[in-house]
C-alpha cells in the first residue's frame, strides 16, 4: 500500500538537471532506504517529499508528488505537509532551548497550549525516541548539553511530537559514534510500526540491516528499486551490483 507516489519527477537547480524522471512508490509502514554515491540526488529527492526545496531560490520542479493521493504542491499547503511528513537531519540540530521546549516547540506552534497535554506529549515523544529515562530529570536544562547521540534522539523525539505519518531521515547516523548509531537503528525498527520511514544512507550495511525496500540512485536517476534482500543478493542491474559490492562510490 503506497503512501507517497512520485510520477515523472524532474528537478533543476538552475540549469543543473539534478533529478531525472523519478518514478517511485513508497510503501506505508515500511523503511525505504535511498542509497547511491555522493551527489547522485538522493538528498535532493528526500527534500522534495516535504517541500524543503521550496527554501532554495532558483529550483524548478516538474512532475507529480502525491501524498495519500493528494498533490503536495497543488492540493496541500506546505505547513500542513511538513507536520505530516517530518525530517531528521544529518547533523543533530536541537534548538538553543531546554529539552522540554525543544519537544514542545512543534505541538505549540500547531496550537496546543494546555500545559498538562504538553507534558504528556513531551514524555510520550521522549519515550518513543528511547531518550526519556536519560533526560527525565533534566527536562528544563538546555538541549545543547546533551551528547551527539542523545541530541539526535532528541531531534527524533521532536519530530514525532507532532505525530507525523512519515519520517524522512537524511543520513541520520553518519555523524554519530557506533553505539549511538546502533541505538538509533534499533529505534527505527520500532518506529516503523507507527510511521513510514524514508532514509538516505551512505552506509550499505545500514541499508541492508534496517530497510524493507531500497532505491539505488545514480546521477539523478533511480537505477533500481526493490525489496532490499533481493537487491542486495541478486541485483538486476550491473551498476547496482558494482555499487553494492563496493567497486565504486
Amino acid at each position, binding site marked *: 500500500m503506497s503512501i507517497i507516489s512520485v510520477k515523472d519527477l524532474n528537478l533543476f537547480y538552475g540549469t543543473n538537471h539534478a533529478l531525472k524522471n523519478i518514478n517511485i512508490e513508497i510503501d506505508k509502514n515500511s523503511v525505504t532506504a535511498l542509497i547511491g554515491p555522493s551527489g547522485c540526488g538522493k538528498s535532493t529527492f528526500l527534500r522534495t517529499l516535504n517541500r524543503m526545496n521550496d527554501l532554495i531560490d532558483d529550483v524548478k520542479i516538474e512532475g507529480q508528488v502525491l501524498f495519500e493521493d493528494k498533490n503536495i504542491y497543488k492540493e496541500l499547503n506546505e*505547513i500542513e*505537509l511538513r507536520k505530516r511528513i517530518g525530517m531528521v*537531519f544529518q547533523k543533530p540540530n536541537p534548538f538553543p532551548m531546554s529539552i522540554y521546549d525543544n519537544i514542545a*516547540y512543534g505541538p505549540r506552534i500547531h496550537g496546543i497550549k494546555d500545559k498538562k497535554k504538553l507534558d504528556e506529549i513531551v514524555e510520550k515523544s521522549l519515550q518513543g525516541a528511547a531518550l526519556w529515562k536519560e533526560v527525565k530529570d533534566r527536562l528544563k536544562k538546555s538541549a545543547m548539553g546533551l551528547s551527539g547521540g542523545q541530541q539526535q534522539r532528541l531531534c527524533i523525539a521532536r*519530530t514525532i511530537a507532532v505525530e507525523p505519518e512519515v519520517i524522512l531521515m537524511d543520513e541520520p547516523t553518519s555523524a554519530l559514534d557506533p553505539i549511538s548509531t546502533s541505538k538509533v537503528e534499533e529505534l527505527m525498527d520500532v518506529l516503523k510500526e507507527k510511521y513510514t520511514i524514508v532514509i538516505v544512507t551512505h552506509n550499505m550495511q545500514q541499508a541492508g540491516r534496517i530497510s524493507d525496500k531500497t532505491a539505488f540512485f545514480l546521477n539523478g536517476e533511480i537505477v533500481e528499486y526493490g525489496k532490499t534482500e533481493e537487491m542486495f543478493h541478486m541485483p538486476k542491474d550491473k551498476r547496482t551490483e558494482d555499487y553494492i559490492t563496493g567497486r565504486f562510490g
Partner: protein
Amino acid sequence: MRKVKDNILKIILWLSAAITVLIIVTIVGYIFKKGFKLIDFNFIFGDYSPTSGGGIFPMIVTTLLTVIVSLLISIPIGICGAIYLQEYAKQGRGVKLIRFATESLAGIPSIIYGLFGTVFFVSTLKLQFSILSGSLTLAIIVLPVIIRTTEEALKTVPQSYREGAVALGSTKFEVLYKIIVPSAMPGILSGVILSIGRIIGESAAILLTAGTVASMPKNLLSSGRTLTVHAYLVTKEAGNIELASAIGVILIFIILALSLIAKGITKTINKEKF
C-alpha cells in the same frame, strides 16, 4: 633571530595595549580629579543656577528621555529593516543598494544631521526645538548602527536552526519570532548598547534640535538641555572646566549604569540558553 622577532612583536603588542589603557585612565582620571569634588546633593538636585551651573537634574532627565525616545523609534525600525534585508529580500542589486545607503548614512558627520533636523523636524514639521525633534534626529543617526549589528547577529544564527524549525511545519513568522530573533538577541543588544553610547554622546545634532532650555521638560514637545550640551555651554560661556568635568563624571556613571543594565539583560537571556 626568529625568537628575537617574536619577542619584539610581543613587546610592541603589549605596549599598544598599555598605551590604550593609559589613555583611558588619563582621561577618566583627569575628569574625575577636576570634577568629582563638585558633586554633592545640591549639584544634582538643587535649583538650577546659571551662575554656578549646578542643579543638573533637569539635564539628566532630558538626557534619559532623549535616550528612551530615540531607542523607541530606532529599535523597531532597525530590527525590522535588518530582518527584511537578511531574511526576506532577494539578494540582488536592490539589496546591495539599500546596504550601501545604510553604510553611507553611518559616515555622515552629526552636524549635518543636526542641520537636517533643524530644517525638517523643527521648522517644516513644526515640532519646534523639542525633545521630540532631538530624539527623531538621533534615531536617524543610530538607525544604521542598529541595522548593521542586527544583520550581523542574524547572520550568526546557524541555518540548521531554520531548517529544523521549517521541517516541523513552522511559518516564516514563527521561525523568526521563536527561533531566529531570540538566538540573535545578544548581538542585537550589543548594537543597542552602542547606540546608547552614541545617543548620550551626541552634542552638535541635539543642540540644533532640542535647544538649550535648562529647565525640567514638561513633555516631549518641551525644549530641553542634555548633559553634553550643558557641558559644552558651560565651557564655552563660563570657561568653567571644573563644572564641565563634574558633568563628565555624571555622564560616565550614566553610561556605565546603562551598559551594565543592558549586559545584565543579555546574561539573563543567555542563561536560558545554556
